[in-house]
């Protein structure tokens, strides 16, 4: 199921990128998917970290072209999400909180990386813009996919951490 959702998120990411150009709805669908599917890895942290790394690597290959950058950042986000998940119950509100954390970390680390390497100029307003533009769509998507997965796991009796 995780593989199907990941594939679906890649297609959706491509679709949103095509339809929404520099609006208030910037997609980070793959990142949101990483956060939402965490409970299905149960206590297998190693597998979850590997999943984050591979998903980030594929994201690099398909969308960004910056080799291993998203792979590294996804792994960092995976560790943080894991820490939050072990200290907080898994429900819709904590999932939204985790998505917000993931988006902020991803945008900030990307911004710092590109600034340090001289690709972009240092502009805090651009960073804030990229963060708040990414939040809305990803929270909506995260909420929907959480509810869908919640219902599916109940129906097909798929085990996950609650």
């Amino acid at each position, binding site marked *: 199921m995780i593989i199907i959702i990941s594939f679906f998120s890649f297609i959706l990411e491509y679709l949103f990128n*095509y339809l929404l150009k*520099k609006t208030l709805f910037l997609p980070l669908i793959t990142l949101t998917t990483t956060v939402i599917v965490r409970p299905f890895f149960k206590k297998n942290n190693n597998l979850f970290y590997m999943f984050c790394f591979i998903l980030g690597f594929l994201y690099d290959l398909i969308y960004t072209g910056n*080799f291993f950058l998203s792979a590294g950042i996804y792994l960092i986000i995976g560790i943080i999400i894991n820490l939050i998940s072990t200290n907080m119950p898994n429900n819709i509100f904590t999932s939204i909180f985790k998505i917000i954390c993931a988006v902020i970390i991803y945008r900030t680390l990307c911004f710092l990386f590109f600034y340090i390497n001289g690709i972009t100029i240092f502009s805090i307003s651009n960073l804030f813009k990229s963060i708040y533009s990414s939040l809305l769509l990803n929270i909506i998507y995260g909420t929907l996919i959480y509810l869908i997965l919640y219902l599916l796991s109940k129906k097909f009796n798929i085990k996950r951490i609650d």
Partner: protein
Amino acid sequence: MHKKEKNKRTIIILSSIILSIIIATIFIKKNFNIPSYGIKDGMMYVNNIITRIFGNKDYYKLEKENEKLKEELEQYKDYKSLNEELNNEILKLKETLSIEELISDREYAFGTVINRNFDYWQEKLIINIGKNKEIENNMAVISNGNLIGITDDVSINSSSVILLSNHKFPLNISVKIKIDDNYIYGILNNYNETTGTYEIIGVVDNIDIPQGSKVYTSGLSSTFPSGILIGNVEDVTTDNFDLSKVINVKSETNFDDISYVTVVKKGNK
């Protein structure tokens, strides 16, 4: 034993993160992109499906544009016949003077923007044409009639475009400003994101440059053919030493809204 395993895992994760960042830095500094070509080209098929399904999202906008284009088409027919006549004259003159190539000779390829990452929105974008349309690195890219950048990282079915708004644009573009029937020459320097203007430096001619004068590529390089519009003069100042003019030029292209592009190749087959 459990602690030992935990430490081992921490070391693996930390080294993976550090290695990833190092590799990413090397790739970005050296501009390596070769291994992604196959996957990027594969994603073009997904793009084609998406374009077919959602390609008519701007239907009403397109209808209006179509009306406008129909009106312009009438004018275009007249321009076409004039252009053919002028081309014939040029060919005859070329033969008479034994000239093989003019600096204004060019070829076109048309493409669509398929990806633009928000992290480097002002720096580059990806278009859906590459080696399949004989695109090479450093070709001029225009949108809405104005120069917007150059091609880079060309794969079989896609290419990156480094935008002129990129603060690290790799080329110095030689430009000419048209004043009545004369041209004055300068170098396109950098782009100001706040004002949305380019800066032209190195203009030493003591001529008044009126606001709204057209700025074109000069063709004095191996990259760009001459006569590609860059923008209109917004205002003129002088440099810190009062020795040469600094001209601010505004492009007519909105860099936040680029959907279709034309790649211009210098020379003639």
